[in-house]
């Protein structure tokens, strides 16, 4: 069997591991646009902050490709897929054939049209290792004192935190009325804003960057909604990511908001699979297909796609949004429909201003469907498990936000099942 994997992050690595768990001998070739050994994408903010060195970026050990018998062709960008001929073409003009293909090209940063942005030096996106290297270089050779981060999502906040660590005066600009707007509510955002402000970062909500002002071609200020001007020598655009499917436009593969896959992570063409941020996957809580660009799902989808490519029959049951992020020493977790309110949702919440904690559970028909934990995040996974396993928590509702909440709060049968492992009941 001749396997071809496009990509080199969580989904691609998961697929390699999945294939090898079934097929020890088949030929695996991996093509990646970036020249680097597989690295942890979220760690780029830690690198920029100086919290980890380049040697700690590896997502898998240095001998990964060798150990898993992968021929890794790094720095080879795929520009076209021919599903009829079972080949892909690279930018360098090489062709690779496959028996089974995995597309795991991830996401690419979404950059809106902003006057003056195109071509301005000192403006960056922040999703790849090269972005971190370029920003680092720029900080070293230019006199940067102030930075603006456009976008108060995961990437924007981690970028802001890193720039604070580099000693800059940072302003986060977010269009919504709160930070992490897809998963946080106002109460959660307030704690996060306070954590940033304690580090002397500024947060501007309800507006965006209308115009980038340059001096000799380099960013010198931005103009915000309403006309306010902010001096800055560095701008990070972190509005979000979209599935990286541009190169598939001519392939005939069915595209929605991302690459469309079925419950076995097969695309619309025979022998072509896809996983990770590039796909439009099943969200089992929202009961819809949509891109869910988060690492745990990328890794899981990759493993399942890899197993299926190698001939096993494994279904992907869908995922839900979930994120753990710590900003300026404030740990936070959000899972599922964390922001849902009104009928048919029931919201339980506890706030402790002194301890700077906030904990909220969202229920739908007595089942947990959403979670926000700020400050006090211990044992969060128990909630995640209850959401995934669609457990009726009606009888223990009053215990969910209690200090001593734990496995003991749960129904003893569920507890024993969890503790013993599926199929091995006590």
């Amino acid at each position, binding site marked *: 069997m001749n396997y071809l994997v496009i990509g080199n992050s969580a989904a691609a690595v998961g697929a390699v591991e999945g294939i090898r768990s079934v097929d020890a001998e088949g030929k695996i070739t991996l093509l990646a646009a970036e020249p680097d050994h597989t690295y942890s994408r979220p*760690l780029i903010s830690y690198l920029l902050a100086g919290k980890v060195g380049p040697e*700690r970026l590896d997502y898998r050990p240095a001998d990964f490709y060798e150990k898993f018998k992968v021929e890794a062709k790094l720095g080879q960008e795929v520009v076209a897929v021919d599903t009829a001929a079972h080949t892909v073409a690279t930018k360098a003009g090489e062709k690779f054939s496959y028996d089974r293909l995995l597309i795991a090209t991830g996401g690419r940063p979404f950059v809106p049209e902003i006057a003056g942005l195109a071509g301005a030096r000192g403006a960056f996106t922040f999703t790849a290792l090269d972005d971190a290297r370029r920003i680092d270089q720029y900080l070293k050779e230019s006199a940067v004192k102030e930075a603006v981060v456009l976008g108060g999502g995961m990437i924007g906040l981690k970028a802001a935190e890193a720039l604070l660590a580099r000693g800059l005066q940072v302003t986060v600009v977010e269009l919504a009325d709160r930070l992490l707007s897809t998963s946080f509510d106002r109460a959660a955002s307030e704690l996060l804003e306070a954590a940033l402000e304690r580090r002397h970062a500024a947060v501007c909500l309800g507006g965006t960057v209308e115009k980038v002002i340059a001096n000799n071609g380099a960013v010198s200020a931005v103009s915000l909604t309403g006309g306010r001007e902010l001096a800055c020598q560095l701008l990070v655009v972190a509005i979000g990511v979209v599935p990286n499917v541009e190169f598939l436009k001519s392939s005939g593969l069915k595209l929605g908001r991302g690459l469309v896959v079925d419950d076995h992570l097969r695309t619309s063409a025979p022998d072509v699979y896809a996983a990770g941020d590039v796909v439009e996957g099943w969200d089992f809580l929202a009961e819809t297909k949509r891109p869910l660009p988060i690492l745990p799902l990328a890794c899981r989808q990759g493993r399942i796609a890899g197993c299926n490519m190698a001939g096993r029959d494994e279904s992907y049951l869908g995922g839900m949004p979930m994120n753990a992020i*710590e900003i300026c020493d404030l740990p936070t977790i959000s899972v599922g429909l964390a922001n849902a309110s009104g009928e048919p949702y029931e919201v339980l919440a506890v706030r402790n201003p002194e301890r700077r904690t906030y904990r909220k559970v969202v229920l739908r028909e007595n089942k947990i469907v959403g979670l926000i934990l700020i400050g006090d995040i211990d044992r969060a996974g128990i909630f995640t498990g209850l959401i995934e396993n669609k457990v009726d928590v009606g009888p223990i509702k009053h215990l969910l936000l209690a200090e001593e909440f734990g496995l003991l709060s749960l129904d003893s049968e569920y507890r024993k099942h969890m*503790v013993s*492992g599926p199929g091995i009941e006590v």
Partner: protein
Amino acid sequence: MKRIYAREDLCLGCRLCEIHCLVAHSKSRRIISAMTREKGQITPRCKVEESGQVTFALQCRHCEHARCLEACMTGAITRDPATGVVLHNADKCVGCWMCLMSCPVGAIQRGREGHVASKCDLCQGEAAPVCVANCPNEALLFEDREERKK
């Protein structure tokens, strides 16, 4: 694989498992130092839950499809291919808490040893995990139930 199983009906809630775990994962590996000089800097990787008459000790289940493993963004969590044990490398961990969010039994803690996660390693190098070996009431068992099932 061999895993640790708790017997709720026999657990007294004495927390000796937590103490032995703490000592085994301390720098000094001596109970006095661990409980004095290193106090507050080490985390027991097993946790006794207690409510009324019911108590039991809980550690990492070393799941077959480990959620923490797929959620780990740095590659700090790995599975030993020979033994199946799910291991955590504190030197690679940055404390992002994705594993903590993903573990359905809540067996991963924010460690006090630094800004990193902390979880049971089944006492690598020991004949049996110290929590099991030192449980006075045999409320913890270390056995292969998959084998027994077969």
